[in-house]
């Protein structure tokens, strides 16, 4: 376990030190959310109606775009080879890096969503729902995304291919994230069912992601 924490600490330090990492993800989030009203026209009622959807889709894209670097930096500078010689299996290495990604990107994006909600005229009572569903859903984004990041490590055009590979896996998270919000806006009871599924998806991804990612990483070292 000490290796896990050592690595996690280093990755968070790097995220902090290589400044702008988080900043750019947030910036991208902001820009996609801003582009939407530009593309869709300034009708406020329309915006209110689709605001949660846009916030979720934009969050997905912003998180996605920060994923290619997940293993790439460690691969390119040879660190990954050395990490494989540590005292823990590669699965835990992958888990540690996905966790670092969630902490350094997923959480801040989720917390920023309400601010962007203002731009989209989001209903007041939807604010806590948006934050809650995003906090519950973003782990799936980081951990399932790790699979794509590992698979596309040595491919040219990594970013796009990664998006293509992992977006299908994100669809359930997106759907249950949104239905949780819309159900809750109708009745508190409806919320619970969708929200539980959302959380379950995240929990499953905590296992599935690192296992598949480690399998892919092993191939790359060959």
């Amino acid at each position, binding site marked *: 376990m000490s290796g896990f924490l050592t690595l996690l600490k280093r990755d968070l330090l790097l995220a902090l030190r290589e400044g702008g990492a988080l900043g750019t993800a947030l910036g991208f989030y902001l820009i996609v959310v801003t582009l939407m009203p530009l593309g869709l026209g300034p009708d406020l009622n329309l915006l209110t109606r689709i605001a949660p959807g846009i916030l979720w889709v934009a969050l997905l894209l912003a998180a996605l775009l920060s994923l290619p670097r997940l293993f790439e930096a460690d691969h390119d500078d040879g660190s990954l080879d050395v990490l494989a010689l540590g005292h823990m299996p590669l699965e835990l290495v992958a888990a540690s890096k996905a966790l670092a990604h969630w902490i350094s990107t997923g959480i801040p994006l989720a917390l920023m969503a309400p601010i962007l909600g203002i731009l989209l005229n989001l209903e007041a009572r939807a604010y806590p729902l948006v934050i809650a569903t995003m906090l519950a859903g973003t782990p799936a984004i980081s951990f399932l995304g790790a*699979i794509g990041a590992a*698979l*596309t490590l*040595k*491919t*040219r*055009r990594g970013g796009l*291919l990664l998006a*293509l*590979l992992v*977006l*299908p*896996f994100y*669809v*359930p998270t997106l759907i249950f994230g949104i239905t949780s919000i819309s159900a809750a806006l109708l009745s508190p009871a409806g919320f619970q069912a969708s929200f539980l599924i959302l959380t379950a998806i995240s929990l499953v991804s905590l296992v*599935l992601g690192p296992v*598949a990612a480690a*399998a*892919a990483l092993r*191939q*790359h070292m*060959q």
Partner: protein
Amino acid sequence: MTTDAATQTWTQRLANPTRFMALSGQILPWLTIAAIAVVLYGLYLTFFVAPPDYQQGETVKIMFIHVPSAWLAMMGYLMIAISSFGLLVFRHPLADVSAKSAAPIGAAFTLLALITGSLWGKPMWGTYWVWDARLTSVLILFFLYLGLMALRSSLEDETLAAKQTAVLGLAGVVILPIIKFSVDWWNTLHQPASVVKIDGPAIHSSILVPLVVNAVGFSLLFFALHMKAMRNEVLRRRVKALRMAEVEQAARGRDTSSATAG
């Protein structure tokens, strides 16, 4: 660091590429003939025998193409998942050949299901496309096929590409139950299962028979195409190996001559 990969698994011995080539060479012609015959018979039943539906009219005939394609779209993916498992776990030499060959065929059937479904949707639902659970999940299956092919083509090293694609193929298998049960989990526009049900089929035999014949025909077609594609792939790999060996021999000749000269 202890490794001993010398022991072959029984599956490896059972189906080495040479034996596969010999065996498939014998089976393929018959399989092709059977596939063509059954498909033609199925089409005949579809267009000349099956009655138009009292509600849907002639458009119901799209079903005889649509439903088998949809089934094969899912079966194709299942085949990829099983092959991937065979590659990653048993290192089966033909598993990757099978997975690679199945992808474009499965994708084609998925596309066919999507297109026929859309064409059917226009008269039935008034639009080519709706965002219901089944349609969406089949579309996602199509994306998965595309992803598998894109990943493979973007890795230069073929051995690596094979294994990475297999990892994705296995991880993606979660999509199949979602497609299958999406109609039961969510209330959607799309028809729930009426043929493959625990308490027996729920449709009339005048429709069931052509449907089954078509399903058999399409399946035979799938297997024939798959076997042909596998044979092509094995041959392609042999040609490539020969070329590499030639180049290497040239390099080796050069090495020894320059070593004696220098």
